[in-house]
């Protein structure tokens, strides 16, 4: 496409056009076919509709293998940087799909400010609620009654979920997905669960933080984050069940399901996020979406902070500082939930959807 024709397009279309240009070169080359599932999806096609590009972009997990292997990166005139081109398409697709869409852009432009403001805002809110009400509960519930917690967190949990579901629906419509079979969903989950694609197609991981050298660090860090998060989530869910179904309200002893999973999850989450931030700072920023870098870091920091503040709360739960710590921790959790649809966290959902769609397309041929 000529520069003139490109200039006439809006930013979304320009992003797509650039990805198409690069994908057509890759399709004539195919040297990177073995790195990840984006390439087989790409070489199955001959021409790329916008929706094909959205789908393939969501299959990419930015391992960068194809960048360092490419004989056509700048200064070569073909100027291939597929990880970045696909990251840009991905980001714009999430901004387009997730409701309400303006918020995603806001978050991506002013990530740190939004994150910090949200956490502090909610923390102060919690402290104010506490001052205004006198509750007679025990432990944490002395600070904020259980009912108050639920009435704040239930919507905070459901709203983002609705937003993501709506977004996924739009995604599914755009990429032309059909009703998935159990087998396709299972296939996608299995791939995601062991992060098959992060092994780089050769079992040695990505090119993330050491330029052209492979490393498994990113896969392990990512797993630490994911499993840490799931454990924390499990701790909360088990706690809720115990509270309502078995009438066993918190606090729980150390050797109880909520505590054990909460603590191990918190440790894993905090360490994983810290590690990930370190890897990210060492990686070449020009190989992912420039716009998203700050937003991704802010989000990982927030997630890590949720874990860390939870651990500190556990440690100092019996001290004077407990109410303030609790407010900060809950503020972080609430911020995390509400910001989720607009952050890298959404990528998990879209990536899963993309993997299911890929299973479908492979089934077809």
């Amino acid at each position: 496409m000529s520069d003139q024709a490109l200039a006439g397009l809006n930013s979304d279309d320009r992003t797509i056009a650039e990805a198409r240009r690069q994908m057509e070169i890759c399709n004539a080359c195919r040297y990177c076919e073995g790195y990840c599932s984006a390439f087989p999806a790409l070489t199955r096609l001959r021409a790329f509709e916008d929706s094909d590009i959205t789908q393939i972009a969501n299959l990419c997990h930015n391992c960068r293998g194809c960048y360092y292997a490419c004989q056509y990166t700048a200064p070569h005139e073909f100027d291939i940087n597929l990880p970045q081109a696909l990251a840009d398409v991905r980001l714009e697709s999430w901004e387009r799909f997730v409701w309400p869409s303006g918020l995603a852009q806001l978050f991506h432009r002013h990530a740190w400010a939004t994150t910090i403001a949200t956490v502090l805002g909610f923390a102060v809110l919690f402290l104010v609620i506490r001052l205004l009400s006198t509750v007679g509960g025990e432990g944490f519930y002395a600070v904020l009654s259980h009912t108050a917690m639920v009435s704040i967190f239930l919507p905070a949990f459901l709203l983002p979920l609705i937003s993501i579901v709506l977004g996924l629906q739009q995604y599914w419509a755009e990429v032309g997905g059909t009703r998935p079979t159990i087998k396709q969903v299972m296939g996608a989950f299995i791939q995601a669960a062991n992060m098959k694609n992060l092994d780089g197609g050769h079992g040695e991981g990505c090119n993330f933080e050491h330029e052209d050298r492979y490393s498994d660090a990113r896969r392990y860090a990512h797993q630490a984050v994911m499993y840490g998060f799931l454990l924390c989530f499990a701790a909360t869910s088990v706690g809720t069940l115990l509270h309502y179904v078995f009438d066993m309200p918190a606090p729980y002893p150390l050797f109880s399901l909520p505590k054990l999973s909460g603590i191990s999850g918190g440790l894993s989450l905090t360490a994983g996020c810290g590690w990930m931030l370190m890897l990210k700072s060492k990686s070449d920023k020009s190989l992912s979406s420039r716009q998203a870098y700050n937003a991704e870091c802010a989000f990982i920091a927030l997630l890590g902070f949720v874990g860390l503040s939870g651990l500190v709360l556990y440690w100092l739960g019996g001290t004077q500082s407990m109410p303030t710590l609790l407010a900060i921790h809950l503020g972080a959790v609430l911020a995390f939930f509400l910001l989720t649809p607009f952050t890298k966290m959404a990528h998990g959902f879209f990536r899963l959807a993309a993997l299911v769609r890929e299973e479908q397309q492979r089934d077809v041929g």
Partner: protein
Amino acid sequence: MSKSDPLSPDVLIIGGGNAALTAAITARENGASVSILEAAPKPYRGGNSRHTRNFRCMHAGPLGMLTDTYGEDEYYEDLLKVTKGKTDPELAKLAIRSSEECYCWMEAHGVRFQPSLSGTLSLSRTNAFFLGGGKALVNAYYAQAEDLGVKIHYDAPVRHLQIEEGKVVHVDAELSGEKQQYTPKNVVVSSGGFQADLDWLTDAWGPAARNFLIRGTPYNRGVVLRDLLDQDIESVGDPTQCHAVAIDGRAPKFDGGIVTRLDCVPFSIVVNKHGERFYDEGEDVWPKRYAIWGRLVAAQPDQVGHAIIDSKSLELFMPSVFRPIKADTVEALAKELELPESKLRQTIDTYNSACKPGDFHPTELDGLATTGIEPSKTNWARPIDTSPFYAYSLRPGVTFTYLGLKVDQNARVSSSNGPMQNLWAAGEIMAGSILGQGYLAGFGMTIGTVFGRIAGREAAAHV
């Protein structure tokens, strides 16, 4: 001079592609201190090796990604077929026999393989594909070499090797523009062919060579090769020949690589700038005819050809980097291509009426031939009559040159007075010893790996 003197390494390697790196790693692993001088800046390191995708590998049974077996005799016969016997049987068999152990050596040194690429199934038995292609291979070797303590200099072209009494006494190079004189104990030259020097190509081939495109690196200008030939080092291979294929005429002058290849010829008719056909486009399956079309196009006026298809055939071949030129009528297409409209119309009409009904099989010789025209098209001859019409312009794209240094089984170079004491050669620069004519897919990397390892071993053994 002390061993740590950076200008006097045990082994100095000239070049930075596959042959250079395998030699450097091997020499270092055998205890020598090693420096590499690579003419290209870092982003373009790795010569033509960075454009490759596979190497041809003998194997007695399934080996890694390679299926079935590919024995020494079959491999050698394949070589004889393409070279028409222009090979050195001893060296050729050495390369073939050693290729099997190369697979594991390469894996042990960081190269990763992948199943044969979609669209190249026919090679899954004979050729092992590098995951990510040649640049990933080169990256892996550079990382290995660095870890082993090999000194690597980019932007460091070598200008001259001073030879006295059967020995290289010093090597003149330019490091980032600054003149440096090296006094290594031993030298391995692995600086490729001369195909990027258009003046030299023009001397050898004639003025038509100015219009050739160079598929690989602009840094292989044969400076070291010429310097050695001028000093009476023995050569091998036809100095006037190069391997050329027909590629997309819109490709960059250098470094266009694999994506500029065009596989549409068997389903097309190819005309020259006068709108006339000049060769049987359906002579054989494309992998077997791929390499002759460079010469065919080079022999046409202005070194250009135009492959023309209609919409029936558009999706029968691998996509290429540039979209085809498209028009609704033959006349409009002729205009786009700046061909004489009535002549193209006439050529297509004549061809169309020479096509006969029959079964068309795009993937095998189908015998669907024209009758009564010259040249005939002997397979896949279907009329070009279904709008829209498409065209790709073809130009000769040079892969490599055949002239090189003559070596023995130990990769040692000779002058007219006998073997050189401290000079070895590996890769493209000596490939003419084995590949006197034609080309066997994946054999370039095999020669480079086998002789790179031999040269590295020998150079380290003689310090």
